[in-house]
């Protein structure tokens, strides 16, 4: 699991339509572990999509990754992911399938959501929750936005870490 300032794990994962994606080649990259059925992930979802929309002009990709065990949790199946994408719920956000769970393990992801911000060099600069309160949409992913603003401006995010809040990642037995 990388610490703040360490190189973030690289990966190549397919999105819900089969196209491959990897982080990098951007001034900052957001990697967020999420899923289909967790109320915390769903409560924060629109705020994360809004970040993707608002920072697209600054070249920041947001990659959403579903690592949950879809055998025990069928609502996290690739088919269910595809359905959400086709309904327009992931506008501007590739929704990636981490079938082996290797990427979640490499990042030390614990919850859905669990947010990571990488800088242009691929170093981990922020990890944690999108903002302080899943119940309050006006928080507007403030932690994530502040971290992106700092990285894009060449500063250290403050805070650089917050406790991730959400449902546990559903690991395979």
């Amino acid at each position, binding site marked *: 699991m990388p610490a703040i300032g360490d190189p973030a794990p690289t990966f190549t994962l397919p999105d819900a339509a089969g196209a491959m994606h990897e982080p990098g080649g951007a001034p900052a990259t957001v990697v967020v572990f999420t899923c289909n*059925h*967790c*109320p*915390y992930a*769903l*409560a924060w979802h629109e705020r994360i999509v809004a970040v993707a929309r608002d920072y697209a002009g600054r070249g920041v990709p947001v990659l959403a990754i579903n690592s949950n065990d879809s055998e*025990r*949790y*069928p*609502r996290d199946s690739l088919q269910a992911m595809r359905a959400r994408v086709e309904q327009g719920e992931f506008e501007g956000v590739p929704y990636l399938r981490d079938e082996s769970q290797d990427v979640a393990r490499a990042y030390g992801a614990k919850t859905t959501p669990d947010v990571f911000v990488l800088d242009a060099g691929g170093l981990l600069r922020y990890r944690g929750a999108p903002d302080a309160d*899943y*119940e309050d*949409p006006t928080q507007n992913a403030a932690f994530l936005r502040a971290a992106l603003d700092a990285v894009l401006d060449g500063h250290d995010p403050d805070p650089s870490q917050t406790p991730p809040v959400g*449902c546990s990642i*559903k690991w395979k037995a």
Partner: protein
Amino acid sequence: MAEAGLDPNAVVLREVHTDSDAQREHFVGSPTIRIDGVDIQPPNGEPFGLTCRVYHRRDGRISPTPDPADVRESLATAQTKSTERN
């Protein structure tokens, strides 16, 4: 419970540890709140299993817990039914 004039100690907390327990208990996720055995938000085809449950607050927000107003309403309904039975 206290607001409704009931003993808060009457709340029974039960942990569901395994998938087989979830199947047996018809448990669709945490938290599930049953009053006199009746789920305050009856599942709508949700699969049984160890997972988090999605609730909708009355203002439409998604939440991991039910709207407190829904809990109060369910409690009041259960009290009325209990009174009618007795």
